């Protein structure tokens, strides 16, 4: 948006002051620098170059990952430069900040002139100014000055120009302009950078992002929203060919003890309540409970399977023919034992070493006394322990893991500001791309026979189209009927 602006048409209010190092000169220099196109280009290119870093080097990984891939020395440099989280480093953020300063200063410096020219334009130009323009032509036209000028005004008005004319005794001067919105659009886009960054900042200061692993039928408190969330159901739909169609969780919001709203969320359809968004983000097998476990019961003596039973979670099942009462009381996906707390726990969420805990009550029989025991049965090591005094051996042959649904819980109060900025940038760029600002000046000067029309014009872009338009206008003026 820089200065092909004719200085003649828009004379500065004050003459240039003598060079010095006063405050005014300094601030003018600073404004000049920060409003400059050079700085904008520099920032665009540097941002583009530095943004590539994060797409080549993985972001936010654990130190071991980097050391393994790049070595220790390189990792030290990575930390120093912040390239493991490059988009949040002070220098990347500063570049973004500088871009905002750049675009705001440009707005501050250039927009007032545009605003003025939207409201008050000056017709006054000298003939040499018209002759010195990029597009300029002198057209002899037969007819009196006033009529020719009138015809030109009409022609330009028909073409959608805003026309100002000034009729003097010796000459008539016409000024016409069109497409100022293109320039307004550019400045709208300039402002949008700051709006978007502002929205982002608000989001990062006042928003949050959390991840919840939720099981069906459970209710979870959402402290940051002061309400509860119940997970009613989780399931997966499949296409005919077996690929996944959608992941679905039915959620109910419970506010002050009573259910408020129920919604089935899928990957592209979150639940929003009080500004908090719940996304279907992942799913998996729970590591601390199962729906069902299948257990084979073998007779120790004969090593024959005497019964197979599916045990539901924490419900006692009686097997009268074997004189057994079984109940599935616990499950871990990756068996671990904390010897100080004397507690069994799951070392990871992976199903690496699954085990169930059974509560077994064996009726007394002729040969043995009543047995009551709670052994852990391992899926991968069926013969690890033997239950003393029991007739039977128990084998875990399979289980149906309970699915959990992974919910992402997000609040971002800045998001609407980002959308406002986004609208501004799209509308602004579109306006400035497709509408170009053109200005035409004409002087109608009476000569010996008829008049001479001096027509000149300029545009800040789309020279080709403007040339065409200028040529057509010239032809129309040549054949002007007066």
């Amino acid at each position, binding site marked *: 948006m820089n200065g092909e602006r004719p200085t003649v048409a828009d004379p500065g209010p004050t003459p240039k002051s003598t060079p010095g190092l006063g405050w005014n000169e300094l601030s003018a220099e600073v404004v000049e620098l920060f409003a400059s196109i050079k700085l904008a280009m520099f920032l665009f290119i540097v941002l583009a170059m530095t*943004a590539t870093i994060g*797409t080549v080097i993985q972001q936010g990984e654990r130190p071991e990952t980097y050391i393994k891939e790049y070595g220790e020395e390189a990792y030290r440099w990575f930390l120093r430069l912040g390239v493991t989280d490059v988009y949040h480093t002070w220098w990347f953020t500063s570049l973004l900040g500088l871009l905002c300063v750049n675009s705001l200063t440009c707005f501050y410096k250039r927009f007032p002139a545009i605003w003025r020219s939207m409201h008050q334009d000056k017709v006054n130009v000298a003939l040499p100014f018209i002759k010195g323009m990029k597009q300029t032509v002198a057209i002899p036209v037969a007819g009196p000055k006033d009529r020719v000028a009138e015809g030109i005004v009409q022609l330009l008005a028909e073409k959608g120009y805003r026309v100002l004319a000034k009729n003097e005794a010796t000459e008539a001067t016409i000024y016409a302009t069109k497409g100022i919105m293109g320039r307004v659009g550019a400045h709208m886009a300039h402002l949008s950078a700051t709006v978007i960054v502002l929205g982002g900042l608000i989001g990062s200061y006042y928003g949050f*992002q959390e991840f919840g692993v939720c099981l069906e039928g459970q209710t979870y408190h959402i402290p940051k929203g002061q309400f509860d969330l119940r997970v009613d159901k989780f399931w997966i739909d499949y296409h005919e060919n077996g690929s996944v*169609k*959608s992941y679905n969780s039915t959620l109910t919001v419970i506010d002050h003890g009573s259910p408020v709203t129920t919604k089935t969320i899928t990957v*592209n359809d979150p639940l929003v309540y009080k500004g908090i968004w719940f996304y279907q983000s992942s799913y998996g097998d729970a590591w601390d409970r199962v729906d069902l476990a299948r257990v084979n019961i073998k007779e120790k003596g004969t090593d024959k399977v005497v019964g197979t039973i599916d045990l539901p979670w924490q419900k006692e099942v009686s097997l009268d023919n074997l004189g057994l009462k079984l109940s599935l009381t616990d499950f871990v996906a990756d068996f671990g034992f904390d010897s100080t707390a004397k507690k069994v726990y799951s070392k990871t969420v992976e199903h690496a070493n699954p085990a169930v805990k059974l509560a077994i009550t064996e009726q007394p029989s002729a040969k043995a006394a009543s047995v009551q025991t709670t052994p852990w049965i391992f899926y991968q090591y069926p013969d690890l322990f033997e239950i003393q005094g029991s007739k039977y051996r128990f084998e875990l042959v399979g289980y149906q893991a309970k699915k959990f649904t992974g919910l992402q819980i997000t609040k*971002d109060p800045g998001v609407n500001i*980002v959308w406002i900025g986004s609208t501004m*940038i799209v509308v602004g760029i579109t306006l400035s*791309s497709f509408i170009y600002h053109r200005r035409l000046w004409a002087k109608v000067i009476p000569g010996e026979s008829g008049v001479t029309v001096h027509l000149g014009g300029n545009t800040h872009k789309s020279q080709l189209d403007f040339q065409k338009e200028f040529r057509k206008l010239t032809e129309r003026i040549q054949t002007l009927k007066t």
Partner: protein
Amino acid sequence: MIRSLFLFDMTFWLYLAALLLYVGYVLAKRPGMQLAAAGHPAGLPEDSGWAAQIGQVATIVTVFGWVVNTLALLARAYERMQVSGTFAPWSNQFEAMAYVSWAIILGYVLLEMRYRIKAIGAFVVGIGFLAMGAASLLPYRYQTAEPLVPALNSYWIYIHVSITLTSYAAFAMAGGLGVMYLMKERAERRGSRLRVLASFPDLETIDELGYKAIMVGFPLLAFGIILGAMWANYAWGGYWSWDPKETWSLIVWLIYGAYIHARMTRDWEGHRAAIYAVFGFLMVIFCFWGVNFLLSGLHAYA
């Protein structure tokens, strides 16, 4: 599946034929007695008899190819509807490429209708053909209409993907014009009397058209990125996550942003602008292809 793939194949061959015809046109064109006087529009150089006809056939074949391309995309949309109930015929890499070449050719046909400069076809139809060709080089499993993964199964795919791909097509056109500019400029500088040049428009026109193509692509890409951000806000739980694809499309946008600002200053017209447009297009190619195959991320669906 067979139907649309057959049509895509046919599109490929038609674009090849169109490209060859445009090249033939450029070769057949002879300089007229006197090239158009400066500032005059309609001074079409005379030619040796064949150029006009070849040019006409080239245009017809291009338009026909584009119609077949359209039919192929429609057939694919129908097939998608059968498989998964969504129809966007730009849901995988192959379809996206086919759509990009569709958009490039459409853009070219509009350009030819408006400016009547056929020589550009040798470059721009060439890129459209290469896009289609690259698509058909993809392994078969990438070419079929598999159902969408849940993350893609959304109405956003219709608008976000198509707009972004259209912007790529505009940048492709600018890239083609950039190459054309550099070729012509080089030939002129050497004082070459190559008659090939006869059909080329003057440098200023090529430069301006290239700039225009970027002026179409730039807002479209901005819109595409923002639609992507809106989609991400629904699907991934945040409008911006610095995923390689979104970062790269931002990089491409910044590159063209620098170009557009540079154009405001005088010394960035012509030669430099042409080189820059070619460079920008290479970055678009990386964003479109490179990121999908070289970098991992949330966009790695194909």
